[in-house]
């Protein structure tokens, strides 16, 4: 334990390991208690609270914000976080949304040496990474899909389980009304998360986002971006995800920056895509068929609902086609591959890395696939762990918490005894 403490001190003083997996975390507010606005009136009167109770999600004692510890071994980085945002969270639907966030006190393990997937595996989705403020990243899907047999989207309320997994709902489109100004909300056991770009985090990191103190909302800045976006988080495969602005030239930092353009377009008959409004949802996009290793054509029992007011274009992830399947080329006609990343140099990786980018459209709104496509680039060995089973170096510990951390020093007693010249001091 003492040795570990010594490492903390030297680590802080020297900062020799400029390893972005250790240094990119947002810890400036780790010593502040997480806060929420319970409803709109509390938001506008500027009265956040640090404790809250709703019967289901009870934060009866204040909890700190986000990242509390950064620990590392040679193969893993461990982030202990409360999972609560550093920005003020909420309100959600003016207080009507049934869930409130709670301290998750989880440990996220990230592989330090990411490896590229050799076989193309369709990975289970859900939680796919962690943002640098210690908030979890959920994938673009909200876990529900169309059930052909029932003729509607499966949902817990409809009592239909999770549907056919062919027409998967877009979480941002379908759940957006329940997000707070940071584009976050929490599921039923209080795990706060972002599905799309982490807008308030980007503001905290100075990533081309403005805050309107009157409306208490965040907006993409109107100015022309001049700097590369910071690392916003780490995916479970150990690769970083950046804000929307990358180098114009993937291999040369000297040619300025621009908004990274996604390779996905709505299947509305433009950009070479088919037109689902005319054809009905009778075919999967090529990227999705590839992931399922099946034909694009659907059986009659697999088709989705017609495009209409209830199921508009964009309702499902499969309403998007990938331009790479339509004769266009990543790196020439658009920037990001079907996983929403590319190999490129970045400020933190001057020699290049695979990097994901959060995507927004030209007007600054989040756009599919938001953070990651339907598959990881690397082997997603990262996960939440209950405990750490190997010796680790402490790279960061919330200093508000260090008061509470044991020193691990053995019991030492100092003895003072009188001799002719005064008291003699002995420490044992």
């Amino acid at each position, binding site marked *: 334990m003492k040795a570990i403490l010594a490492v903390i001190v030297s680590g802080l003083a020297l900062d020799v390991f400029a390893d972005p997996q250790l240094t990119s975390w947002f810890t400036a507010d780790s010593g502040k208690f997480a806060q929420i606005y319970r409803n709109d009136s509390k938001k506008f009167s500027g009265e956040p609270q640090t404790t809250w109770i709703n019967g289901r999600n009870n934060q*009866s004692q*204040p909890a700190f914000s986000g990242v509390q510890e950064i620990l590392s071994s040679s193969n893993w980085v461990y982030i202990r976080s409360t999972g609560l945002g550093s920005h003020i969270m909420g309100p959600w639907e003016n207080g009507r949304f049934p869930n409130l966030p709670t301290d998750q006190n989880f440990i996220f393990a990230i592989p330090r040496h990411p490896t590229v997937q050799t076989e193309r595996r369709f990975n289970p989705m859900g939680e796919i990474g962690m943002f640098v403020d210690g908030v979890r990243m959920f994938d673009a899907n909200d876990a529900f899909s169309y059930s052909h047999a029932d003729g509607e989207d499966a949902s817990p309320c409809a009592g239909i389980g999770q549907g056919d997994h062919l027409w998967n709902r877009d979480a941002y489109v379908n759940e957006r009304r329940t997000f707070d100004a940071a584009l976050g909300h929490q599921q039923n056991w209080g795990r706060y998360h972002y599905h799309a770009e982490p807008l308030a985090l980007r503001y905290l990191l100075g990533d081309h986002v403005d805050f309107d103190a009157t409306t208490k909302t965040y907006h993409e800045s109107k100015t022309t971006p001049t700097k590369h976006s910071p690392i916003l988080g780490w995916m479970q495969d150990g690769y970083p995800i950046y804000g929307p602005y990358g180098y114009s030239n993937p291999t040369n930092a000297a040619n300025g920056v621009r908004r990274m353009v996604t390779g996905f377009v709505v299947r509305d008959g433009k950009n070479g895509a088919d037109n689902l409004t005319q054809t009905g949802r009778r075919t999967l996009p090529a990227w999705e068929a590839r992931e399922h290793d099946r034909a694009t054509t659907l059986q009659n029992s697999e088709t989705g609902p017609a495009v209409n007011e209830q199921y508009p274009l964009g309702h499902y992830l499969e309403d998007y086609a990938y331009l790479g399947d339509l004769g266009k080329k990543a790196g020439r006609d658009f920037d990001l591959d079907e996983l929403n990343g590319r190999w490129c140099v970045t400020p933190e990786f001057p020699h290049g890395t695979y990097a994901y980018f959060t995507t927004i459209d030209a007007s600054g709104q989040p756009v599919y696939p938001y953070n990651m496509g339907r598959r990881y680039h690397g082997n997603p060995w990262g996960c939440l762990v209950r405990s750490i089973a190997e010796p680790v170096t402490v790279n960061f510990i919330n200093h508000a918490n260090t008061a509470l951390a044991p020193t691990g020093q053995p019991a*030492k007693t*100092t*003895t*003072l*005894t*009188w001799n002719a010249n005064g*008291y003699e001091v002995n*420490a044992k």
Partner: protein
Amino acid sequence: MNALRTFVSSMTLLMAAGTISAATLQVQITPKVSGENLQPASFRYQTSAGESFSVTRVSYLVSDFALQRGDGSWLEVSNSVAWLDYDQNRDSIRLENIPAGEFRSVRFLVGLNTNLNHADVAQFPAQHPLNPNVNGLHWSWQGGYIFMALEGLWRNAGGELDGWSYHLARDTNAVRITLAAALEITNETKLELDLDLAAVLNAPRPLSFVKDGSSTHSRDGDPVSAALGKNLAGAFSVKRISALTDVEIAVAHPKPLYLPAHFTPYEFKMSATFPMPDLPCDNPLTVERVELGKKLFFEKRVSINDAQSCSDCHLPDKAFADSRGVARGAEGQLGTRNSMALMNLAWKKEFFWDGRAHTLREQVLQPIQNPVEMHQSATNLVLKLAALDDYPALFTAAFGTRAITAEKIALALENYLLTLTSFDAKFDRVLRGEEKFSAPEQRGFELFSTEYDPRRGQYGADCFHCHGGPLFQSQGFANNGLDSSFSDPGRIKITGMEADAGKFSVPSLRNVALTAPYMHDGRFRTLEDVVEHYCSGVKRSATLDPNLAKHPDGGVPLSEADKQALVAFLRTLTDARFQAAE
């Protein structure tokens, strides 16, 4: 008293070193307000925003002095560090062994460099300016010192008294001061500086208690500490340079009193994390004296009617506190105050609730002679003990001769009381990683050691300002808001200073679960009552401690769960080993 002791020890060192040719520069820094002498606790001052305020504490560290030679190079004065405190009349640092000559400027830090700020505090000798028990400026457990503590009261918009408390701390906030000063240093030279507190709060960055907040603890990104640093840089000025004439004469090390030819040194034991105590050199701890003192402590014949010993009001299994609200004398008379717990007295400088005794030997004879306590005259006590079979031999072992005197009785009791050290509570074992806090205890500690400062997102219970450090006692005397007018005036009776009305000794919280009832008059029966007082019962008055006055009316609003957590933490300060020992 302390200033003198420090001075004496540094003179001793100087003489021992025998560097007679070297010169000495005494730097004296006087707090001023716009050129006027500081009037403590007076509401004559105004911020630039027109807020009336007083100053009750100016306590700070200066270090790393250097003098610039004519050629521009700097002479660093090694080990130059001082604690300056308005209340304690500490205003000077002596820079020894400086080569005589001409210098053109002086520079120093308000605060400490990183190494010094994070040094192991247990290493500093008893009278060293960085000994936490001397300066009361060390942030316990979080490491590092408060570089400058400025506190006082102010009147808010409603005309009510409120507190302000600006604590400048953290490595990056140490402020380098450089002043042009044509110094011709010969033998003994004195450099007098002024520290303008008006500038510290006003220029170039004006601070307003309303606008900027009435407290800072120098957390990262805090604008108040940044402003203080900026303002401090220009707040010092050179007032006078002169040859020093009134050099104090060095006093010799006090010799042990009545030390017998043969004695057994007593092993005084304490936690290695405690600061060095200032054990008396004229009353060395010996096994023989401690044994005699202990026997006297439990001796009923010390009282007029042989009915009461010290231990009857200072119960060993209650950390030597009394479970009665106020003391009850040998003849049944009731006193007015609660008998205090007796532990870790080696770190205390004043005794009794009002601090009227400066040493334990001075203290111990008072309850014996007090008519409402043991009511025994010193003469009678000596005669009674001399007539008993066992005492003359014990006095011989402790003091070399059979003669019993009131002074020796006091010295023996002082010896014994100094040995009552408590340092093995669950808290200590948790700190060492041997045990774990329960969740409420952990939360309680967090509340205990976190300030209440909503403006900066801090919602702690703010206990550590007065009960900080490994001894859980970091401030001498305070008015903790028990009353708005004082039936027992407290410390003002001793000092005669208005600013001390309603102030009482701040007790250590070690073993606090054993020492009920609480407060100087024993008014609170339980720890829950005490916590409730700090949540809802704090009453405002002119001398309310600034660290409490800055809280909302009534106190720190804690939830019921947090109140219980705080009590759970306080219970971890009980030292069963101390409770079992006598």
